[in-house]
């Protein structure tokens, strides 16, 4: 017995030593990998503030010698030439993004809870369809969506931008996977207490789903923010920021610097939302499964 104990102790001492060395090693690997991952984005930012004459010099520099905001002001100058004021595009994008994010999170959470935790006629079928819908990619699907929207008289309205993005199978799948980990006992207990499904969902299950919900918010926001109006909206006054900004970057001023400025400009809101939501995820500390 004593032998085993000392052996264990020695092993755990060794382990402790290795753990510190190991974590420094891991930290170094992560940092190197992180630098590689961050390099293209860093270069994007650098190039967006490089003056034209610095873009094509040899050897290419990893920083801007004389940083300038010319690329940004050029981009905005082109945008101001549009018939519709710039603020309208901002409004369109903010409105569409907010509507999609709120509706998607609200609808998916509820549906995910029911599909993860209730058995009812059709529940298996719907669960299967969700995964199939995730996997099904087709180049004709946009045409069919267009036909459906045309039949419903949604072309050239906000609805054409918002409605197709509201029910995302990915969002639902994410929430369903996460909610399936909630112990059944917790839900049964609430049922015994006489709570309805709606209340169980929002007062008992969802407060424990902060990490998944915040992740869903990130996905929903990112997807909605990048909605390009494409062919469902041709009227200028309903176009979103990504549409007009990429138009501006591509037409007239086909310069790498302006394209970079456009990319940086469009990246700011999703990154802000990402940081806010991630902070919530990280602050979550899971305690024991059933909370009183």
């Amino acid at each position: 017995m004593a032998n085993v104990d000392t052996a264990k102790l020695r092993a755990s001492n060794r382990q402790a030593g290795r753990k510190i060395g190991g974590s420094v090693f891991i930290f170094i690997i992560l940092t190197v990998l992180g630098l590689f991952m961050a390099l293209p984005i860093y270069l994007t930012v650098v190039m967006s503030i490089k003056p034209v004459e610095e873009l094509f010099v040899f050897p290419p520099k990893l920083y801007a010698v004389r940083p300038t905001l010319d690329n940004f002001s050029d981009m905005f100058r082109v945008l101001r030439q549009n018939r519709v004021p710039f603020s309208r595009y901002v409004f369109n994008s903010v409105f569409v993004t907010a509507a999609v994010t709120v509706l998607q999170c609200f609808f998916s959470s509820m549906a995910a809870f029911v599909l993860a935790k209730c058995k009812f006629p059709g529940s298996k079928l719907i669960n299967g369809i969700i995964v199939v819908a995730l996997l099904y990619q087709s180049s004709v699907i946009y045409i069919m969506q267009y036909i459906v929207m045309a039949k419903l008289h949604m072309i050239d309205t906000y609805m054409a931008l918002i409605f197709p993005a509201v029910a995302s199978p990915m969002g639902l799948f994410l929430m369903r996977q996460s909610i399936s980990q909630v112990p059944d006992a917790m839900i049964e207990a609430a049922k015994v207490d006489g709570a309805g499904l709606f209340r169980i969902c929002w007062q008992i299950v969802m407060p424990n789903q902060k990490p998944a919900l915040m992740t869903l918010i990130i996905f929903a926001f990112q997807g909605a923010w990048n909605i390009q109006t494409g062919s469902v909206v041709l009227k200028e006054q309903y176009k979103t920021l990504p549409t007009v900004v990429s138009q501006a970057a591509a037409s007239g001023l086909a310069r790498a610097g302006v394209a970079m400025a456009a990319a940086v400009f469009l990246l700011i809101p999703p990154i802000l939302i990402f940081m806010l939501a991630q902070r919530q995820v990280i602050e979550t500390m899971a305690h024991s499964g059933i909370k009183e």
Partner: protein
Amino acid sequence: MAVNAKESPKGRKGELWRDIKRNKACYGMIAPFMIFFIVFTVVPVLMSLPMGFTDFDMVRPPKFVGLSNFTTLFLSDKIFIRSIRVTIVFALLTGPVSYVLCFLLAWLINEMNPKLKAIFTLIFYAPSMANVYTVWQLIFSGDMNGYANSFLINLGFITKPIQWLTDGRYVLGVTIVVQLWISLGAGFLALRAGFQNIDRSMYEAAAIEGIRTKWQELIYIVIPSMGPQLMFAAVMQIVSSFTAGTVAQNLVGFPSTDYKAHTIMTHAFDYGWQRFEMGYASAICMILFIAMFLCNKLIAKVLGKYMD
């Protein structure tokens, strides 16, 4: 009850109806999602299914041609056969690598203090938020101004710039690198969230039970409690590695040199949006969907033991 149901079809129907009525709260709660899902996803998918059996140019109404699209694809479309090979190579090289990376990175990040967690998560996820093919074109630009070329020339590895984006030997490799770079996306974040949700007391209990090393912790606690997230990440990985096409199109041009980076999805894009042969394009997509579906079934079976 089960016996009753067997007795008469009417009884079974009544049973089902009662079951439906008893669960009407469930239907009420999925209704908002399902309405949008059916109208904007299910209906368009169902409408697109028969297209693979037609000749459809988006101008004239689709004409039924039976299986001829499929026979053409497999028997006389050499580029399609080549695109299958490219897709398989591409999916095999990016899918598993990026899946393991997603998991390992999410796990390692989870061990850090909150500040570092936030920074590393942002760094690894940011590429999938950005849409910056232009910068990759500049990095792999074929002249000496490209970052990759100038770096390698300065170190003396090469003396002449490499045509990364047009040389048939490199296009697939470059595409794979960029795909890997943007692939720490949805799966990675979902796993990060999953790790955050693991009950802290499980680790304590495990320590008492005699689990000592990080690897034991990983195998006995972490993986078993991450089943649902692992499945989610797997599905996302299948989708992104099988349907990759935009990366190649934006990076090495379309069509790529010698069709070296020509995936099935690129082939579908070629026929659908360049030649407007939508029937043929949907037949291509259908084959891809079947492949993805089977792959998903396989993975679900492997991960099955972690699901309840």
